[in-house]
């Protein structure tokens, strides 16, 4: 524990500071603070998952512009599967399977076919938009809503309890995924191999790591997370599905990934920051503290992305081999 604290002084201090300030506001206005933080988390959740998809891909050397399409396709499959089978679990499961399928496609296209990774991603987006808009049928509804699971004791804590510990399974799953990924990426054999393949594939190859297989496997597994994000969006967050439903979240996630310097925890912090800014703006608007046309509020995350990227894109360093198909020499 003490080793953890000394190694991660800055993030720990920042987290404590944020929690401290949050409680300050909570004692000032508990209802609004809780509501803004609830909004923050539900806004950030799909972005966090999608950013993890990007991180896994890019850490292993594959750019994933197709997260948007992967999420859209899985959200579609999850919703209509749940509506058809009458089971949310079946919907979520098939949604994740759809994500796996879309992820595997990217992996194979980028690695086996040496296709331009950006084009492969854009193709996923366009194909997903095509399938989901053609097979979209209006008038379907979900059999039930995703239940909230109250965690005993923890959910009784003021502020943190209702925000973090009285949520659907998607929230817990996401938080666990982020932590596990952070640990795995930097301490496990898989993480070392993944990073090696993304930074210096020919060295990894020399060391006996199968670059192709590692990349395809990682991008496909990441697809499951995109599927989870999609299932969360249609089954839990919205409860419905509409054409073009993901509304650019896959691209915001890429910006968040860069902002978080390709670190799972960093990306989560960035996504929460985005969610908080949007939640704050909506709340201030609703309270008529500020009077900005709704369109400018809607614009906020996109403008923020551009501003954040234009200050951070040059400063953080992407994995060295990202975007380059690996070719064996000789």
């Amino acid at each position, binding site marked *: 524990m003490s080793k953890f604290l000394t190694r991660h002084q800055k993030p720990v201090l920042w987290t404590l500071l944020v929690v401290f300030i949050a409680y300050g506001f909570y004692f000032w206005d508990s209802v609004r603070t809780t509501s803004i933080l609830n909004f923050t988390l539900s806004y950030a959740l799909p972005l966090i998952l999608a950013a993890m998809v990007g991180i896994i891909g890019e850490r292993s050397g594959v750019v994933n512009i197709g997260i948007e399409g992967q999420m859209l396709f899985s959200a579609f499959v999850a919703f209509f599967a749940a509506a058809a089978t009458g089971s949310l679990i079946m919907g979520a499961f098939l949604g994740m399977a759809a994500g796996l399928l879309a992820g595997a496609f990217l992996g194979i296209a980028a690695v086996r076919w040496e*296709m331009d990774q950006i084009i492969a991603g854009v193709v996923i987006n*366009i194909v997903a938009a*095509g399938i989901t*808009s053609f097979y979209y049928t209006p008038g379907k509804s979900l059999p039930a809503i995703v239940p909230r699971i109250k965690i005993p004791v923890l959910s009784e804590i003021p502020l943190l309890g209702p925000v973090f510990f009285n949520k659907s399974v998607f929230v817990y799953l996401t938080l666990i995924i982020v932590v596990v990924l952070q640990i795995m990426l930097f301490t496990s054999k898989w993480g070392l191999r993944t990073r090696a393949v993304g930074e210096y594939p020919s060295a990894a190859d020399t060391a006996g790591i199968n670059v192709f297989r590692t990349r395809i496997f990682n991008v496909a597994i990441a697809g499951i997370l995109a599927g989870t994000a999609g299932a969360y969006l249609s089954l839990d967050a919205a409860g419905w599905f509409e054409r073009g439903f993901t509304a650019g979240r896959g691209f915001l996630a890429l910006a968040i990934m860069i902002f978080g310097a390709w670190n799972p925890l960093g990306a989560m912090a960035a996504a929460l920051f985005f969610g908080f800014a949007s939640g704050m703006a909506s709340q201030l608007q609703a309270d008529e503290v500020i009077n900005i046309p709704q369109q400018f509020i809607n614009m906020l995350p996109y403008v923020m992305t551009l501003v954040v990227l234009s200050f951070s*894109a040059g400063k953080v360093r992407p994995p060295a081999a990202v*975007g380059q198909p690996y070719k064996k020499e000789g």
Partner: protein
Amino acid sequence: MIQGEEAKKLHPTLSYLVQKQSLVVPLIAVLVAFLIGSVLIALQGVNPVGAYQTIFNAALGSERGLLRTLEKTTPLILAGLAVAVALRVGLFNIGAQGQLIMGAFFATWAGFTFTNLPALLHVFVGLLAGVIAGGLWAAIAGVLKAYRGVHEVISTIMLNSIAIALLDYLVNHPFKEPGQALPRTVPIFETAQLPKLGFVPVGFLLALLVAMFISWVINRTTAGFQFNTVGANKFAAAYAGIKIKYIVVASMLLSGGLAGLGGAVESLGITYRFEPAFNKGLGFDGITIALLARANPLATIPAAFLVGVLRSGAPSLQFDYGIEPEIVDLLLAITLLLVAAPILGKLIFRKYAKKSETISSGWGS
């Protein structure tokens, strides 16, 4: 490319086809997509032959249908050119949609704001406003790319969303047509309207001319040479003294200008006003068109025409058979998949297949 010695051993016809595979593959891709599409249509319980007949009849069978098809094709050519020009520099401008609607709005704005302009001049001012608006909108992404290292795919997508929100605001508040429920602007003055020559819209002819001009610029001028060099190898380009940052911004400016022109031509020649419900998805079709045309400016014309035919004919498919017009999105997506993924090329040409070219690499500037 084709290996010289080996190719000679092939039958001349075959060797010709191998050499022309950047033409052959897209054609076969379209055919295969139509075949897959016919299976999907049949699965909906509709005779695919009849369905395709309906599309082509509606799009090409009558003078009215043909006019509508040409009108649909016009902005598509320009959107396709916009994406193609950027691709030549190694930039993937997936924000043609945002640039196009910015162009459409500001052309309309010029069309209803300036009074007492002579007809020809007014049209010109309107088109220019569209080009400038689209160009500047894309140049934001170009500047961010060149000077801040922000990848254009993300920035142009963000600019799309910002443009949609911004224009939604403009047509709902400052420029809303008074007394109208729909969010839209007032119509443009008659002096700003693009006329028709016979049944051919002038905008269509303009788009053809622009495509030829861009083809000339890309293939025959110094600027085009610099574009291609930066796209092929930016290290070599820098070594040769080409100012890469300048080329990046200039090419985005040109690319956005073309998309903006596409929007302007639609506003001034077809819709005569701006309404957010118009111009949907044109920029994204531009991506498909540019990739189908392999970033060749002249090839965007037939590619755009194909998309225009499908888009123009699809609504009657719904009318006749109850098939959603979104079948076109599906058909185009399958085509794009087949063109972009090197599956077809490898299947047909085996070892003679061209390597798929790498256009963009990672997030580096």
